[in-house]
């Protein structure tokens, strides 16, 4: 067994802080890493199902060695995109709200006034 070599994991340079509380920066990083690991597990289940469907035994070795073809990769891309729609729901909700506001910057209070005035 060759000696293991450890690579440098943090890039040199000050990391920007994006939120007032640095704990939020950390929590977001952990959340995104977990989202990634769920996607990895989902691919693993998908691999097991595909191996079983093709009559192969879904052993650990077979799963680890599985190489998805172009069709499987495209199907997984599509799954991940809708998965990210779900995970990032609150971001997409804000985006949609901002889109509406950008299109019509009229304050909501003005709409109430209009309705109350009988418009």
């Amino acid at each position, binding site marked *: 067994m*060759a*000696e*293991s*070599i*450890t*690579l*440098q*994991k*943090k*890039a*040199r*340079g000050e*990391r*920007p802080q*994006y*939120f007032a509380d640095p704990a939020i*920066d950390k929590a*977001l*990083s952990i959340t*995104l*890493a977990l*989202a*990634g*690991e769920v*996607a*990895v597990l989902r*691919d*693993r289940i998908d*691999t097991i199902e595909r191996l079983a469907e093709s009559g192969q035994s879904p052993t650990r070795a077979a*799963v*680890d*060695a*599985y*190489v*998805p073809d*172009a069709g499987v*990769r*495209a199907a*997984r*891309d599509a799954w*991940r*995109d809708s998965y*990210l*729609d779900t995970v*990032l729901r609150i*971001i*997409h909700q*804000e*985006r949609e709200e*901002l*889109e509406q*506001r*950008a299109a019509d*910057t009229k304050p909501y209070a003005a709409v109430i006034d209009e309705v109350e005035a009988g418009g």
Partner: protein
Amino acid sequence: MQTNQDLSTQFRHGVLPQTTSDEFSRQEFVKSLKFHLASKVSLGNQNAFEARAKPAFTKATGGAPETYADIRRAMSDDPYYNFWSAMQRNSQEMMWKSVQIPVERQLPELIAKAGEASGAGTLRLDPEMEIPRYHRGVDIHCMPGGYHTEFTADDVANGAVYDSAVYIYAMGRMGPLNSDIGDTTIAWIKENHPDFKPRRILDMGCSVGHSTLSYCDAWPEAEIFAIDVGAPVLRYAHARAESMGKTVHFSQQNAEATDFEDGTFDLIVSHILVHETSNAAMRKIMRECNRLLTPGGLAVHAETPPYRDLPAYDAFMLDWDTRNNNEPYWGASHELVTADIAAECGFDPAKSFEAYQPSAFEATERRTKVFQGGDFGGGGAWWLWGVQK
């Protein structure tokens, strides 16, 4: 065996790191996250600007934001922009981690394979070469260790890391060989200088040779030379080229001052090199191009568009990397004026040029057609600038 015909995944040349199915899935997730951010989340920033940041800036300063720097100030406290930025930064860090895991696991084998590389090409390293300050200050684009750090003897780790990561970073839109910038530069040269037959070509800042190898096919009679400051990327580049049967002479040299003789090259190219140097270094590089070129020879540098060519909001979004992705020269390099640089560096400014060339690789359905941070290769064109001697 995957063939070069599969355009939807990275080409498996002889030294590309292998991945287990989980490692590959982790990399694919990062690629999907980047594409999701670029195609579905990033556009909300413009709405945040129009609906929220712009009116607030105007109210506070008495005037609407006009320049990209104004827009940066206006957006600096915007919660949507900051959350997107934070996710974008994380996608970058997750990308490096996802490619480091398999490289770390198989590094001894990769080093052994690189050591066995043989063919008509050559590799010349210079352990005494001083790594430029602009590569030692911070790790550019957050790649831990940059192009030059060696973690063990005869190291190729960061060559392998960079090769795998660029495919994810560009979301496959630079093709199976990550060669789109080279292919696009070649297309421009052939369209604009149809009779040009370079005998010797130099690729400056070649890293692992993503663009370099395209020149072997474009001008098969030419001798191809390529330089970089990083030994790990050069060892890997040499092994990668040999595994694909391409003949390139790689050497570890700083493009500011090389050991080639005057008038050695008919064509000198660089691909996304300039923005990773400095204002002083890029001028030295252009003076070195002047020394190394034959009369009539061409220097062509490929980059993303200068800010003056973009609407202020787009320039602000393209400038994201300067402050969020360890690209300290990104912003200033996007302000360069070719004719001025040419004149300063001894060329005839009348023979300088700036051009846009559509991407050679077809990836229409995955291109956003905008130039923005975190969307590298999404614009569908490269900006080329340079000069004829």
